[in-house]
């Protein structure tokens, strides 16, 4: 386990694996360009998890709290960051019902790991843009539902919302475009 090495702008990754050597190796792989936190068991992982973490890499098979249990607890606590399962066990059909964003079978090399984290980070970014766009749209819809058309046309706040909505849509579209260029499965993700 290591202290967060956050730089203000970098993507923060939480790595959880009971195989200490492997956790440390993955942290080394992500040394450049990422802020990493490591945990060697599920309980520690939950302790050091917070909103600043952008991506979680989670080993599935651990003594004590298993990867599945950690995931369930994370979601229960309201963390909705992308999670990738890293496992040395062949996946079964059960991964279809798991609330995860990707599944990697070990061994994983440096390039593979960095690409995976990069994709998940973009996805997290897209989620953020999309959420903002959706928030603006919701507010706009709420106004439209409660005010006569004449009042809307005269409302400065509404005019501003319309501009914001347009800008948010462009941001979300760009994020999505960027995402789909690297992540073929993104189009199916919970949209």
């Amino acid at each position, binding site marked *: 386990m290591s202290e967060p090495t956050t730089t203000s702008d970098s993507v923060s990754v939480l790595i959880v694996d009971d*195989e*200490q*050597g*492997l956790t*440390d*190796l993955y942290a*080394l*792989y992500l040394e450049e360009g990422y802020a990493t936190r490591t945990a060697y068991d599920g309980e520690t992982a939950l302790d050091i998890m917070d909103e600043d973490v952008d991506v979680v890499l989670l080993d*599935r*098979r*651990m*003594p*004590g709290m*298993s*990867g*599945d*249990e950690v995931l369930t607890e994370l979601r229960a606590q309201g963390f909705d960051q992308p999670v990738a399962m890293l496992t*040395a*066990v*062949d996946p*079964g059909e*059960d991964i279809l019902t798991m609330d995860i964003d990707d599944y990697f*079978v*070990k*061994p*994983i*090399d*440096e390039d593979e790991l960095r690409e995976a984290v990069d994709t998940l980070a973009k996805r997290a970014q897209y989620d953020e843009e999309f959420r903002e766009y959706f928030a603006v749209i919701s507010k706009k819809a709420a106004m439209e539902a409660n005010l006569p058309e004449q009042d809307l046309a005269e409302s400065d706040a509404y005019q501003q919302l319309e501009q914001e909505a347009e800008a948010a849509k462009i941001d979300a579209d760009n994020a999505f475009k960027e995402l789909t260029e690297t992540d073929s499965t993104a189009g199916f993700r919970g949209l």
Partner: protein
Amino acid sequence: MSDYQPRNPLSNITSGGRPGSTRVLLLLQNDTNRDHLATWLSDTYEVVTLDDRALEGVEFDLCILDGAMLERHTDRLQQVKDAAAPTFLPYLLVSPNRTDRERGTNVWEFVDEMISIPADKQALENRLRNLLERRRLSHQQATALTRQRELFRRLFESSNDAIILVDPQQNTIRECNPQACDLLSYSRQELLSLSPEDIHPDEMAEFRTFRETVLENGHGWTAELTCQTGTGRQVDAEISASAVEIDGRPHILASIRDVTTRTEQREVLNSLHDVTVGLMDATTKQDIASVTVEAARSVFGYDIAGVRLHTVDTAPETLQLAAATPAVETHLDVAKSEYEIGEGVVGDAFASGEPVIVDDLQSRKTPFDYGSIRSAMCVPLGAHGILSIGATESGAFDETNLKLTQILATNATAAMTRAQREQTLRERNESLSALFENATDCIVDVEFVDEEPRIRDVNPRFEQVFGYDRAKIRGEPLSDLIVPADENTESQRLAERALSGNRVETEARRETATGRRDFFIRVVPIHKDDTEYGAFVVYTDITDSKRRSQQLQVLNRVLRHNIRNKLNIVQGVLGRTLEDGKDVPDTLAKEGLTATDELLKLCQTARELSTDTRPENDETPISVGDSITRTVELLAQNHPDAKVSSEVTTERWIQSTVQLDRALREVCENAIEHCDQSTPEVEISCEQVPERENWIALTVADNGPGIPEEQRSILEKGEETDLEHSNGLGLWTVQWIVTIAGGELAIETPEDRGTVLTILLPTVQPKS
């Protein structure tokens, strides 16, 4: 003319309108009258007109005619009517007035009725119906008479009996049939010129008495008379006679049977009865063949007789001589001992299934030299073989010989069929019994008493595996002997399903002489009869295969998981050392090294697992106390920081195949490694299991945090745990060792602290 279309009289049966309908011929001068009548009658009758045909060419049941036609066709009409006799052919005269009655008197000889016109329709119909009814009755009588005469003639001529018709008043023979001529060796002419007394010259008085009896009573029967034939031979006769009246005078119709041969036949039949008893006592086809041949010789006096049996073992199939009379021996060089089906007279008869008599073998075109045998009689014995009888003179066999021989053959065939069926049954019983006795599965024959399976019999394998004496457990409830207490419900369900008549298959644990084992159990219900209901229960021990498949699965999963993890580290470390500008921290390099160590250790564990079932040469039972001592010593050496103690209250032995040392080591090491106390404590103890004489309980108690749930399921049930947990093989190893030993595992986690793990094992006697 009306539009009525007369049908073709020749197609009487197939006519379209009313099949077998009554045909009425209209012979009327007047067209209007004729059309009128035709219209009237065509509803009920088939109307026929003469048109240009001759009267003789028309078939009809009744003719309606007028005076003019009567006059024109008088002679013809008369002839047609006479020809129809004795069947009545009615003619109805239609007359405009009653004066026609004054016509020539001969008219009434063949005109049967007259009706005046214009006539009432109803009156006409009544007349027609009356006349036709008379015709029907007359036809019936005529037919009956003809039939009787025909019957009599046929009986007379074709009867097997000799029949003569005696005129007692004239004392002559009035008629006789060909059989009578044959029997009495006279021609018909000769017989008809004789007096019946000439046939019984020595018994004149008896004949007369019989004759009077018949005339008096109307019938009579005697076996007292003999008949003297034309060649002077005396024939034992049985005479049955009836009085009949012919030409107004009494006659005697007598049928005579030659019982000379029948007396002989009766003797033969009696002997045949004895033969049949002999046939039914014989148990093999070979024996039956011998009895049959002996019967042919002693009962029928056939010196040359043999039975060939159908053999399917040869290719092509053959008929092989199975038994023969001594005389056959002398002919054996010519009487082949083996025929192919369809070959020669014998093979031919067998192939056709029909008996054959050959009067002269020499006259037949045959590829065989039958030597001095001239006549042959071959009677197939169903599909089993053939009985053949020979004679050195030609024409030795007739139908009577054949019939009697057939009786013998029929009995022999039935006996062979029965013998074959019994043989099959016997063989099946024997193979069933052999299967039961020698099966490598345990088999129990049970009957259900009060819906509970009770032992009727068990096979030796069952005795061996479950450790019971066959003779001592008959009648015992099966469940009481082999079902562990915790499997009782499941066992009851099994019995219920079997009781409903279903074949049941399941996997369950049973208590054997060497502990609990896993079995694949098949229950095959058997209905013996309505009152008796049972089943065969077959136990296949699948403990080893079940464990092996589980081992394979776990090994595959655990090894792959661990190898992937460790190799990922090694790969990462090595990869980085080769890359420029990237360093490998010492800590990570050490971890890489540790990973390789662990991989090697894993190989060792896997190797140990794969050898754990190998039977050991040394069959000396293991002392449990010694094993505990060794374990304590080893642990003290490897884990000096831990406190390991033991308490053994009973000195017992277990089978040499049980890897108790390893099991104990794994359990203790697991406890020490997972202990969260500064000084791990482990205590091993051994004691006798209460109420289970040949069992011991080995207990390992620790002061650790308590064993996690997922590890409990490995140990207690040997169950596949969640995918996410447990990377090690240690606890699996313990589970497998205990399973192989037929033992049981139990885990308790006392509330205060630690885990108490108990291994129950069956014990054996120490080798003296």
